[in-house]
């Protein structure tokens, strides 16, 4: 596939029309277009004419004449964070905004640093002011602010939350991230591509399988090779295993945050079982370095498959017993129902992905929307939600755990230990190509985009974690809630900081 060129003026209207037809903006970034000018690169998923709900990826390129971005967010609200990241990393400023709020680069970074820019900024574009973050101030009598973080009371990742409250009610929540920005995209472009899968697994270590799979899909599509079917099935098994383990971890969180110790204990006993399953499948409890471009790092012998199948049976039985503790508990239901609602129109507008999106009533699931192998042949349906509240997110997670365990059982039953699980890769990447890897990681749509230059070198490696879409959803969900329910809302989204900060 070759990129379609979309003119600067047409970009926003065309994106809006695409989203209205049921398409998606998967990733929006910029890249050097070879003539030391920047071009916007948008990975879009356009609806397939034949089948309902099916999407096809396509790349749009928009050459830019200067350092101003076309107006975007008024027509395409879900491009909001992408636009701010474009300013941080490329110095592209929105035409309709004099001084944009930085998203990921803080005051502590050198002023006027735009790390992914090939050439320094035009003199005219920089006003000489250092970027300074301004929080939205909520006025009125009795409104006060609660600053939380970036260092928290528990051992979690750093992020700053600024609540503007009236009494116990949250009027506005502003989330500031970027404390973990470590230049991963730049590093991925510089790392020799055969070693890049080691870097990829550090994007967000709880999504090691998801990121490794997205990377492998992108590189394989770039090289035009197909991994063996046995490897495709086992990669899906690893992805589902990661989903089960992480969703179980979040269910522990739901219980702990509502003070429900018995439930937390029940799920805490199950989670290690999912990690042991991962150890049987790939030798690592956290799916590290298992999925590589071309297939799998290690094959799965027959005796290990038996151990894994035994683990899956134990998990299915254990989950059957543990789930009612939470979902049949009137106290827990009372805490979760109606808390942290993201209404469907807003979920649509901000482009929520993953369990949070499906809980709000959106149907989007990469596995089914792109008819990815091996899911298409397994007779499987994505989980559906309803009201967009904490309870809906919890039930979607429970349904996904059950679906993933069933999938795991089928995938392992089909597995042939003697089938090849890896193909050899060529020495060089092809020149002037682009490729993407889309994966339904446990948090939702995960995108890796690779663009190569005329020597086959990687010009730009872009990553979009599902959290990048969903943090805005958390800010919406918190609005109007009481402060003491916020941790529960936060846990129900279960977002990544490091995957977002890159």
């Amino acid at each position: 596939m070759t990129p379609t060129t979309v003119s600067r003026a047409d970009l926003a209207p065309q994106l809006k029309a695409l989203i209205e037809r049921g398409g998606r903006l998967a990733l929006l970034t910029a890249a050097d277009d070879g003539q030391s000018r920047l071009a916007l690169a948008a990975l879009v998923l356009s609806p397939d004419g034949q089948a309902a709900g099916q999407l096809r990826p396509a790349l749009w390129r928009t050459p830019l004449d200067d350092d101003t971005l076309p107006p975007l967010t008024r027509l395409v609200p879900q491009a909001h964070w992408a636009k701010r990241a474009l300013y941080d990393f490329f110095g592209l400023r929105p035409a309709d905004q004099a001084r944009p709020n930085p998203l990921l680069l803080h005051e502590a970074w050198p002023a006027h640093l735009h790390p992914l820019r090939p050439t320094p900024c035009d003199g005219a574009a920089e006003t000489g002011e250092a970027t300074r973050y301004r929080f939205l101030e909520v006025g009125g009598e009795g409104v006060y602010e609660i600053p939380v973080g970036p260092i928290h009371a528990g051992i979690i990742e750093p992020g700053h939350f600024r609540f503007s409250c009236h009494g116990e009610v949250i009027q506005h929540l502003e989330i500031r991230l970027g404390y973990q920005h470590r230049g991963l995209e730049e590093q991925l472009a510089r790392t020799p591509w055969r070693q890049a899968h080691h870097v990829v697994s550090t994007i967000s270590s709880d999504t090691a399988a998801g990121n490794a799979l997205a990377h492998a899909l992108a590189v394989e599509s770039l090289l035009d090779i197909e991994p063996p079917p046995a490897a495709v099935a086992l990669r899906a098994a690893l992805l589902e295993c990661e989903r089960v383990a992480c969703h179980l971890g979040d269910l522990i969180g739901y219980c702990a945050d509502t003070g429900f110790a018995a439930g937390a204990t029940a799920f805490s006993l199950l989670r290690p079982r999912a990690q042991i399953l991962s150890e049987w499948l790939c030798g690592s409890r956290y799916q590290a370095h298992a999925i590589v471009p071309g297939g799998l790092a290690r094959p799965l012998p027959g005796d290990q498959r038996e151990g894994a199948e035994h683990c899956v049976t134990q998990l299915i039985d254990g989950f059957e017993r543990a789930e009612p503790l939470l979902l049949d508990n009137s106290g827990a239901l009372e805490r979760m129902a109606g808390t942290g609602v993201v209404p469907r129109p807003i979920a649509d507008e901000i482009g929520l992905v993953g369990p949070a999106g499906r809980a709000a009533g959106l149907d989007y699931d990469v596995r089914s929307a792109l008819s990815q192998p091996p899911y298409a042949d397994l007779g499987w349906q994505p989980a559906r939600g309803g009201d967009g509240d904490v309870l809906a997110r919890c039930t979607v997670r429970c349904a996904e755990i059950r679906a993933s365990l069933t999938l795991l059982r089928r995938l392992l039953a089909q597995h042939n230990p003697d089938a090849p699980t890896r193909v050899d890769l060529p020495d060089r990447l092809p020149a002037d190509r682009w490729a993407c890897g889309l994966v339904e990681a446990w948090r939702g749509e995960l995108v890796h985009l690779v663009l190569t230059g005329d020597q086959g070198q990687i010009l730009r490696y872009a990553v979009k974690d599902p959290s990048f879409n969903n943090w805005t959803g958390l800010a919406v969900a918190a609005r109007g809630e009481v402060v003491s329910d916020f941790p529960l809302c936060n846990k129900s989204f279960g977002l990544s900081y490091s995957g977002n900060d890159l």
Partner: protein
Amino acid sequence: MIGWALYLAYTLLLPPLLIGLLRKLKSRLQGRQGPPVWQVYRDLAKLARKGETISETTTWVFAAAPSVALGCVLVCALSVPWLGLPAPLHGDVFLLVYLLALGKFAMSLAALDPGTTFGALGASREAAVGVLAEPALVLALAALAVQAGSSDLAVLFASRPGAELGTLLPLVGTALWLSITAELARMPVDDPTTHLELTMIHEALILENSGRNLALVELGAGIKLAVLFGLLAQVLLMGTPALAPWAAHATSLALIVGACAVVAFIETVMVRLRWRRIPALMAFGLTAATMACLIVALKSEAPSPAPDRHAPAWHRPSAQPSDETTAIPPQRSGLRPDATLERGGPARAVLFAPRSGAEHV
């Protein structure tokens, strides 16, 4: 003299053991090994040895508050006959309630002193819960006091209610249990084990305390737990015929341990209550206490139409029996939660809100 020694020894040595026992029970119920029962003594000793980190913006209020709070609970512990034996000091229902309030007031001031948001948030929440929990405690004890004809705790617990025992004790017991668990920052009102600073009530109040200051606060919380459960034990003992001192003492201790076991069980199987539903729970306790008062009032009125000299002035039977019922609304309105709970809404909407819907303002 023996009373002094006994009460002081129990007050200083029993509470850490009770808290250790509670933690151990909770852990075992949740399938964990848990820390040793003696761990709380070690923790207190460790904290007492450690240095303190005190914010530069604090004043003497912050440094003095834990001592004031501990002093309050110590006077409570020495004036309430919580061990089933005569207490060394003369205790009174109202003295007890005001001492508890004074200790809380001191801790709230200390939480406001450093000027941090979480301290202020905790102080506001603690005050809101206190305002909701206190009336039930006062009314429940007042019902017993009227029935006994004295607010002196020694006289009160020595008395034995007559025929209405079967209705009075469950009502008073319910009201006391609910307001005591709220007072002790236990589930379902507060979660003592949470690490989430945004949901804390009591823990947010003491976030800034460290070292010796924190040891005093922890010891005070432990003594409060022992004394209040001991108080509850005395109320339950009113349901038995008068016991020999050693038997009353042993039963009290057993009941205190039993109360800890109940707390451990509740904190394992129950979900913490949503913040906006706390007023409904507290209203339940208050209703029970009010009904207990009503029963005592009706009973004291029935046999003798002449005013009862021993009853407090606000309780003398009036000419029209209907006044008894109209006396209730002012008591309820005294419970009006502050604006942080429900913006603009009347207190009644909170107290009698349906299970869902109305509270989403």
